[in-house]
């Protein structure tokens, strides 16, 4: 497609929309990184900053929504432009959701740090977060450069988040069975893990939407999901420690 629209202000609106989306992506990645650091360092001040930071993300999403609706109403875009506006609008919703899940993670960090609750090992949780941070970074790069191949790769990456989630679920159950006093902290870690698993799903959804935005076709076939925690039961008499 030619780069320049006949109406210059249309290009300006589209550039602003793209910039807002990229800015949101950058902020979401930073928030998740900070929330993970707060958890690792038991840093309540940083956790509170993450909670506060989510408001800014919500504001950015509201601004992006307004701009996308304005473009649809006033410019009535077609074809590639139409796909870009609609998908950016939709994907921004996913980013905002990742922001909410990150905020919740920071709130839980604050709670368990304040209570000095024992959470058991959190290495797997940190690893899950790092994978999702990479996924966010890659998907924003795929958006900026229109890289469908990278989006396809990111979509598949979500499987490793699911696999880690399964492992962590098992670890936490074991840890809780060992000592009832661990339950509070472990429950919070499990909810944080679920949050991160959902973040991975949201990034995978963005990836699917970007493939449509770039090609005009939705990717064929269902994404392979490996989250098996909903079917997991541990027998207390037969736990490997």
């Amino acid at each position: 497609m030619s780069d320049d629209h006949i109406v210059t202000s249309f290009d300006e609106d589209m550039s602003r929309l793209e910039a807002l989306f990229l800015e949101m992506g950058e902020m979401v990645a930073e928030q998740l990184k900070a929330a993970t650091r707060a958890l690792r360092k038991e840093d309540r001040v940083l956790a509170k900053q993450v909670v506060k930071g989510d408001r800014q993300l919500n504001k950015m999403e509201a601004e992006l929504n307004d701009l996308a609706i304005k473009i649809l109403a006033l410019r009535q875009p077609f074809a590639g432009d139409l796909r870009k506006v609609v998908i950016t609008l939709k994907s921004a919703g996913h980013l905002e959701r990742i922001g909410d899940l990150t905020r919740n993670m920071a709130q839980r960090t604050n709670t368990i740090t304040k209570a000095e609750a024992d959470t058991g090992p959190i290495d797997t949780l940190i690893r899950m977060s790092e994978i999702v941070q990479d996924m966010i970074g890659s998907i924003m790069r795929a958006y900026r450069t229109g890289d469908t191949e990278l989006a396809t790769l990111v979509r598949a990456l979500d499987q490793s988040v699911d696999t880690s989630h399964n492992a962590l679920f098992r670890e936490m159950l074991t840890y809780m069975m060992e000592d009832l006093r661990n339950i509070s902290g472990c429950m919070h870690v499990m909810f944080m893990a679920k949050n991160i698993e959902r973040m991975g799903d949201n990034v995978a959804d963005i990836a699917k939407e970007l493939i449509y935005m770039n090609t005009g076709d939705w990717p064929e076939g269902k994404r392979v999901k490996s989250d098996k925690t909903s079917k997991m039961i541990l027998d207390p008499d037969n736990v490997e420690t």
Partner: protein
Amino acid sequence: MTEEKTAQTDASTPIMTASGVDVFYGKKQAIKNVSLDIPENQITALIGPSGCGKSTFLRCFNRMNDTIDSCRVTGDIQFAGQDIYSSKVDVVALRSRIGMVFQKANPFPKSIFDNVAYGPRIHGLAETKDHLEDIVITSLRRAGLYDEVSDRLNEPGTSLSGGQQQRLCIARAIAVDPQIILMDEPCSALDPIATAIIENLMDSMKEKYTIVIVTHSMQQAARVSQQTAFFHLGELVESGATESIFTNPAQERTQNYISGRIG
């Protein structure tokens, strides 16, 4: 088709088929090797920048180009199993089967009734005065105009508003019971409300008629048509289901044109 890639199409029986159509004005070639099926009981929109040949192509369908001395049409256009450019074809009869509505409403300087009755009279379609009245009223109803003019059928057609005059012209085209109605930018002189009324009318008309419309408004093409054909520099660049053309066109030239970029 000049290029291989096309947007997705909805399968439908064509009522009219153009194959390898070329149109020349003197030495200048205005249409280059265009092939297009017109599906029955659907609305087909022809879009493209000014001078792309879309109106010229539309006028091929009822041999309106015959009236231009320097114009020469080659290729094959089949309608009802017959090449409409065959020497055996009665052009007047052809135009009663394939009616036309123009950009500017052009009612005859006659009464509303006589405007609509004109075609049936010259084609001898009405056996009695009552029959003629039936045809006129039915045509005005189908054009969505009867309720607005029922008490003033003897007033001049030119006394109506622009939108009403255009619907009068549609009623006049319908009155000779055509199968296809060609519309050359029928709403370009109308306000948005009159345009919406005509678009709504077209939507209901497609149950009985096949419509081919030339429009400069891509929004209008997107709103009213089921099939869209994009012309550029006398070539048919791409045709297909309207939904596909406006969300995911196959050709870069189509993409550039419909998204307002210089093609």
